[in-house]
């Protein structure tokens, strides 16, 4: 039976306006669910009293006919590297413990303006520099589909929080894949916007030239509600630009007839676990039955995409953390300390070549988008590995988990394109499989529209883990 927390954002908002339940009921349900699922270690802080007070105030507003917007009364969670006024933002670190946020990050302020209620902050890989959310300072987040499996990262707490339906949506940040990876492994939907489409003001940086903020939620439609509210130019972030996205309006037509879909030749369908390939091919077949044209697209010079991502993602954080590496090395977790120290020795010329390569890859993708509307890959070559697992075997070859995680997500991160992950099936162990939809520059709406169209024909996004 569907409960209050199984509703979509639009459904719960509609019920609030029909007075079927109150904002306090909704926020209380969220807080109760958070209490019931503490074994996930998805949260680092929960603002129960504050959230209930705001819920009461939002209910009074509704009673007086004041409607703040599509998120009025909707509880959401925020990754702990995004500032929430009057709370601590440690970015999952010991280094920043006690870091008090004087004001909201722009994304939080914009969501609140539309009526969202922040119920807590979610766990992440320390400083967002890793893919497991195995955090030595705030605990090891677990995957709700199987507690012995990884939830991915770095926004693993947000992925687990949404999958366990503790909230309707959560914010994540995505540099090399940190929204899409947990979306895929936890069976939820998440979008990373193009760089600059959403303000990074008040978000603790990982790698400045790659960082983005994006929502994870139960569906593409729910992600669109949040992204439309969050996006657009912000005077606090000079990298931000443009008008807010208009993704919801683009979803009014969910037909796929005429949609042009590309599969990257020699990339999208190779070196995958068999269940991932099956789910991917089944999705392609479904899209064709629904009227889309699917074709292979060759994009040249992609052989160094993961390497380029690693180099930029290594150098920029190391520059930022260098003083602390000298003065407080013991305050970092072992893996993040190694990442940050190793990044110090990359030659400047190689960093610049990686950034030149990124521009080249962006041009290659732009050419591809003359021929297709979106490009598809699996989000990951494999389903959730075991907690603490560092290697994985695919096609009889043993591979490193961290860099294998980024094999497909790097394709959007390196050129700075919008990309979404949405669930398209499960493997034999009941673990979710994700599809990555990559869009042209500034076409977040097109990415979300394809996701909504697919989710109008499938129910993978409505499956729930059998967590107690």
């Amino acid at each position, binding site marked *: 039976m569907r409960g209050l927390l199984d509703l979509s954002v639009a459904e719960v908002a509609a019920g609030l306006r029909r007075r079927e339940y109150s904002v306090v009921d909704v926020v209380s349900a969220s807080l109760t669910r958070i209490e019931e699922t503490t074994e996930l270690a998805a949260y680092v802080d929960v603002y129960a009293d504050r959230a209930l007070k705001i819920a009461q105030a939002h209910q009074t507003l509704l009673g007086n006919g004041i409607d703040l917007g599509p998120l009025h009364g909707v509880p959401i969670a925020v990754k702990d590297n995004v500032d929430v006024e009057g709370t601590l933002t440690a970015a999952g670190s010991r280094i920043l413990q006690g870091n008090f946020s004087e004001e909201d990050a722009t994304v939080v302020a914009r969501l609140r303006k539309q009526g969202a209620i922040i119920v807590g902050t979610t766990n992440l890989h320390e400083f967002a520099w890793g893919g497991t959310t195995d955090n030595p300072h705030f605990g090891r987040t677990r995957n709700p589909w199987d507690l012995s499996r990884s939830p991915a990262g770095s926004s693993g707490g947000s992925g687990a929080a949404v999958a366990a339906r503790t909230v309707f949506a959560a914010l994540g940040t995505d540099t090399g894949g940190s929204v899409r990876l947990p979306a895929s492994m936890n069976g939820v939907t998440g979008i990373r916007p*193009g*760089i*600059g489409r959403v303000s990074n003001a008040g978000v603790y940086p990982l790698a*400045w*030239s790659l960082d983005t903020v994006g929502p994870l939620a139960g569906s593409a439609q729910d992600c669109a509600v949040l992204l439309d509210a969050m996006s657009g130019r912000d005077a606090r972030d*000079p*990298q931000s*630009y*443009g008008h807010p996205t208009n993704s919801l309006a683009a979803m009014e037509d969910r037909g796929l007839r005429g949609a042009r879909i590309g599969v990257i030749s020699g990339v999208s369908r190779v070196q995958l676990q068999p269940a991932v390939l099956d789910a991917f091919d089944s999705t392609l077949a479904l899209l064709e039955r629904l009227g889309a044209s699917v074709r292979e697209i060759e994009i*040249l*010079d992609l*052989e*160094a995409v993961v*390497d*380029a991502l*690693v*180099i930029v993602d*290594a150098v920029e954080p190391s520059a930022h953390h*260098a003083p602390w*590496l*000298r003065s407080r*090395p013991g305050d970092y977790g*072992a*893996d993040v*300390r*190694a*990442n940050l*120290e*190793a*990044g*110090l*020795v*990359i*030659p400047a*010329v*190689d*960093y*610049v*070549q*990686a*950034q*030149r*390569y*990124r*521009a*080249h890859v*962006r041009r290659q993708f732009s050419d591809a988008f003359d021929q297709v509307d979106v490009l598809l890959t699996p989000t990951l070559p494999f389903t959730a590995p075991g907690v603490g697992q560092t290697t994985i075997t695919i096609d009889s070859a043993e591979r490193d988990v961290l860099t294998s995680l980024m094999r497909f997500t790097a394709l959007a991160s390196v*050129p*700075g394109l919008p990309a979404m992950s949405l669930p398209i099936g499960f493997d034999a162990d009941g673990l979710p499989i994700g599809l990555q939809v990559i869009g042209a*520059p*500034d076409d977040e709406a097109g990415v979300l529209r394809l996701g909504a169209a697919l989710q109008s024909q499938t129910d993978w996004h409505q499956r729930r883990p059998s967590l107690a």
Partner: protein
Amino acid sequence: MDAQQVRGLLREHGVHLDGGDAETATVVLAQDWLARAARVRAVAERVIPAGEPPITVVQGEDR
């Protein structure tokens, strides 16, 4: 680059080297990343026309 050369670079950056597991992890990772950097350099030198600039943080072509 061999491990001793990597250690020398790390020392130049003020990294505390104690000869333990943390040092070994950093050195091994740095060697892997230097190899990756060399691969990126080789591809970039091969495929990017001379004079093409890097991607910029502010991506002006989208404005």
